[in-house]
């Protein structure tokens, strides 16, 4: 319980009005403060985008520690929170002149080479501007948080619908541990869980060991856990993808998760009027919640019947098979420019938000790390685990259920329930009748990007990787110089090397390159899932007991 007499948390010197359990970004958004950062190269304004702690848009400095995500950080009394980006502040940033001075971007790869004597000067200037925050203050406690090692039978990563259904069906067996990034709610009595703890690394199992899996997980408060498990179920769900268009990095463009995270109460949206992007389940849900605030539904592909029905009931116009060309505005977007696919005329709508809900992507890095064989599904534009009988991945002892395994709708819960008997060693699971995303239908972005790129406004910046401010033009230059493949694109442009670890930019860039290179996306390659899954503090990992024997009971 916070002590009411304690000093309140302060944001930039002012007392902060923050509700119990309320993340900082939401508390600030309630009072109209969105702009928290500036982008790395061009100092473009940044406001929360993903809402789930993965992007680079809401970084603040808390008690001397840089790069804390405001959308996940729940302030404590006495906290001192400041923004570090922007000079003098995120709202008024004189360095935003870079954005105007270099309308076509800064070519760092070929630039700053002449005259030779100026090299040290360039380097000093660049280093003055590099990085997000400054180094942590000296003596920020605690330097190293003691971690723990534990041995379990079954580790379940994620406590969403599928995991809860699984655990409800298996019961709280001894030696089951759930690791959940948020709060693990609704677990059966007696199931032990690590709340607000993110699974960061799951290397391939050690053959022959008694507990073949080692899972590294780190709690929000900086405590690390090394979990040795006999069996691991990955139920990490999915996330809302980004979409590429001119100005897609502008404040006011956000994912459905981002919008939900900022909503002061679920029924009150964090915008006045929004354009919803997408035509499926997710958009139908948002229409039901925020329909009266929706200006229009636009979909890159077709619009499903539920969306069409819900939209017509409340009189919201829908634009299926539409290109989203541009979002314009300053610190907040004001309008979007659209065009029907197949060469339709441009038109625009005014709106103060674009909510991306057109496709879900699986949270699959743990599966990649563990060495599970993954199959590309073009209908989703993503890789999913190749599942054998009983949700077994190709790695013995490793299972995947729910959204990360490709299930949608009611099948998410159902997949968890049906996995239960198989975990008890009672034979294969019945997969019949489960709906999956993977139905062979063309994906919403089928053929979308080639059309889009031809029609993008030339004057505006299209930021292909907002964490690193990599422009679409740089990707185009890369391609024009004859380089191929996403792995090289990443190393050439820096796309995907930022704090989101490529979650938002890489899936779009792969589709784009596939179109340019005229080959299927899997041939464009994929970015290796490099650990950790989320950035983890050195002080947490340093606190883990050293090494640790891997055998024994």
């Amino acid at each position, binding site marked *: 319980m916070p002590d009411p007499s304690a000093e309140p948390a302060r944001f930039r010197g002012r007392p902060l009005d923050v509700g119990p359990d309320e993340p900082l970004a939401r508390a600030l958004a309630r009072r109209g403060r969105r702009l928290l950062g500036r982008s790395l190269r061009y100092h473009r304004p940044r406001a929360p985008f993903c809402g789930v702690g993965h992007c680079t848009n809401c970084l603040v400095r808390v008690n001397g*520690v*840089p*790069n804390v995500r405001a959308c996940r950080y729940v302030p404590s009394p006495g906290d001192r929170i400041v923004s570090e980006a922007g000079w003098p502040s995120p709202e008024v940033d004189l360095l935003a002149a870079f954005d105007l001075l270099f309308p076509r971007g800064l070519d*760092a*790869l*070929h*630039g*700053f*080479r*002449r005259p*030779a004597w100026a*090299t040290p000067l360039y*380097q000093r200037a*660049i*280093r*003055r501007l*590099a*990085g*997000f*925050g*400054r*180094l*942590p*203050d*000296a003596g*920020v406690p*605690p*330097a*190293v948080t003691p971690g723990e090692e534990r041995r379990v039978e079954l580790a379940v990563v994620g406590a969403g619908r599928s995991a809860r259904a699984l655990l409800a069906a298996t019961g709280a067996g001894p030696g089951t541990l759930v690791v959940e990034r948020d709060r693990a709610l609704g677990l059966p009595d007696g199931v032990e869980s690590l709340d607000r703890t993110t699974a960061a*690394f799951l*290397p*391939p199992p050690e053959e022959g060991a008694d507990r073949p899996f*080692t899972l*590294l997980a780190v709690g929000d408060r900086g405590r*690390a856990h*090394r979990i040795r498990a006999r069996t691991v179920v990955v139920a990490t769900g999915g996330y809302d993808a980004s979409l590429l268009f001119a100005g897609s990095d502008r404040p006011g463009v956000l994912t459905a998760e981002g919008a939900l995270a900022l909503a002061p109460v679920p029924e009150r949206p964090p915008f006045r009027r929004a354009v919803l992007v997408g035509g499926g389940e997710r958009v139908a849900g948002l229409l039901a919640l925020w329909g009266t605030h929706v200006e229009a539904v636009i979909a890159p592909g077709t619009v499903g019947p539920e969306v069409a029905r819900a939209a017509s009931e409340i009189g919201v116009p829908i634009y299926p098979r539409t290109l989203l060309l541009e979002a314009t505005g300053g610190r907040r977007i004001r309008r979007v420019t659209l065009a029907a696919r197949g060469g339709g005329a441009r038109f625009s709508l005014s709106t103060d938000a674009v909510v991306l809900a057109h496709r879900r992507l699986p949270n699959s890095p743990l599966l990649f790390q563990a060495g599970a064989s993954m199959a590309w599904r073009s209908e989703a534009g993503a890789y999913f685990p190749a599942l054998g009988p009983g949700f077994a991945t190709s790695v013995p002892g490793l299972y995947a259920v729910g959204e990360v395994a490709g299930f949608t709708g009611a099948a998410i819960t159902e997949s968890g329930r049906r996995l239960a008997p198989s975990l008890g060693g009672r034979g294969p699971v019945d997969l019949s009748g489960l709906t999956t995303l993977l139905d062979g239908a063309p994906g919403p972005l089928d053929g979308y990007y080639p059309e889009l790129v031809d029609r993008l406004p030339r004057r505006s910046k299209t930021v292909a990787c907002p964490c690193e401010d990599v422009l679409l033009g740089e990707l185009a230059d890369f391609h024009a*110089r004859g*380089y*191929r*493949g996403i*792995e*090289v694109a990443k*190393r*050439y442009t820096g796309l995907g*090397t930022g704090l989101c*670890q490529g979650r938002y930019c890489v899936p779009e860039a792969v589709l784009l390159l596939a179109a340019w290179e005229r080959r299927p996306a899997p041939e464009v*390659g994929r970015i*290796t899932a*490099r*650990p*950790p899954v989320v*950035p983890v*503090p*050195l*002080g947490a*990992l*340093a606190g*883990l007991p*050293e*090494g640790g024997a891997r055998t024994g009971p």
Partner: protein
Amino acid sequence: MTAPTRDRYRIIIVGGGVVGLFTSYHLARAGAGPILVVERGFLSSGASGRNGGGVRQQWETRATVRLAREAVGEYRRFGREFGLNPYFRQGGYLFLAESPSEAERLRAVHAIVASEGLPSRLLRPEDVARIAPDVARDRVIAASYLASDGTLYPFPVLWGLYERVRALGVEVLLGVEAAGVVRTEGRAGGIVTASGPIAAERVVNAAGGWSAEFSRRAGLEPANAPTRHEILATEPVRPFLDPMVIRLSDGLYVSQTMRGELVGGRTMPHPPGTAGGMSTSVDLLPAMARSLVDLLPRTAPLRILRAWSGYYDDSPDGLPIIGEDPRLPGFVQANGFGGHGFMLAPASTRRVAQAVLGERSDLDPATFGPARFLDPDRPSTPERLQPG
């Protein structure tokens, strides 16, 4: 490009990393075409796209100091000559010793480096604070420092080379593996690929961590062996660390890139061989975290962003292997660079090119040539200053 334009070349170089590409550059400039480079992965898929970008001239062996000094000049000029900026930043290399024997080694290295005319300095622990104020000095008893050492971004070097050598007429095949060597009359006469043989007068083995395997494919027992080496980067913060810092005790090396990320690795107990793949081991993250927080206590709240690994191609004496293999005329070794091939590449590949063309170079064959491992009784001059 995935198919060669001809069926016979003068020179085929196996491996499209920094060593293979730089070798092709020197050869093309010498007018030695037609030249073919075959790379089985994508550009930068080997160690050349996975390293720490460190460039130092502090070495225990005189010949290596000279190669490195020449390379520093080349990397300073690289941007102007190749059109891409590798951001070679001369922030110095700072070696830290924590025991008398380590301090003794730094003194010996300093003596050699200084005698080569480079202004290297031996520092007392208190002097370290001026060069790297955030480095913990509790256990440091001595240090050495050379301000003109530095770090660079490897990628622009690779792109610059790739674009330039193609402009010079070199063919670079990506996604093509050399499965073996064609032997004609006891000589290397080309390579075997999945789509057939390609003939050449000389074959260069610049296959990095896989060069031992490629020697075997040529029927030669290699002296070098690959060892996995892991490395990681933290989230970027405003630069606070100028030099590359190396601690001899745990082999920790760390530098801060122009972007603000800390990039570094340390000694890990990996057995030789490529069985571990290019993944990250579960012990790396905690081990590196302990080492880094110990060296730079203020970094404790910083986050590790990504970890990866690659292969050091280690030779028995820690020095590169350069020259025609006496067991197979026409087969030229350009490997064994350990953890230092990027910094040594520009200068040492000039000698590789000379070996390919049958010219004499200033490298002592007894120190660098492949024959040195064929005679078990030969005295060796090992290079032991391996970390960083």
